[in-house]
């Protein structure tokens, strides 16, 4: 039962990742494009965590933490750059 649920969740998040790529390609403006990349990062975190559950290893969670940290900082930095023209004032 667990393996079926795991396959279902992996399929869902992989489909979501593909949808994000499509949303990134079709985005009308720069904020939409940043949002698509940010959602891609969140979906990537979910995929890494699910792969960690599948292999039974706890090491993948470290990668998930790193991706969560860098994804947030990069999104805020890009928005800050668009808003103010510089990142650190």
């Amino acid at each position, binding site marked *: *039962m667990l393996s079926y649920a795991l396959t279902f969740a992996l*399929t869902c998040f992989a489909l979501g990742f593909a949808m*994000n790529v499509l949303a990134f390609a079709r985005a009308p403006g720069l904020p939409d494009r940043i949002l698509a990349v*940010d*959602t891609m990062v969140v979906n990537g975190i979910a995929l890494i*965590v699910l792969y960690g*559950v599948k292999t039974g290893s706890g090491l993948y969670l470290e990668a998930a933490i790193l991706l969560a940290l860098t994804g947030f900082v990069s999104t805020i930095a890009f928005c800050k750059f668009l808003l103010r023209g510089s990142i650190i004032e």
Partner: protein
Amino acid sequence: MSLALEILVSAALVVGGIFGLIGSFGLLKLRGAMQRLHAPTKATTVGVGCTLIASALTGLAATQAASWHEVLVTAFLFLTAPLTALYLAKTHMLTTPPGELPPTGTPRDWSNRDAPG
């Protein structure tokens, strides 16, 4: 792993997968830029949260010890999703031409366009 725990983990995985899919589908399907902000910041965050709950439960069953990694990732995602949405909304308001934003419903304009005082 006991049957009850397996059912719980499977339910968390299925719910998380459905929420993640809804979030990404909403990003593709919704029309306005401000509407598109809703789907990933709420639905996808809940989906990842359910996935992390499933991961924490399997880790608990395998090693008989609680892991802090899932708690850290969950706390970080739930703290940063509203901030990301706020900054993206501000960027959208700044990059949209003045006449195309929806009305505020008050005599004042949107906050980053209104004169102080």
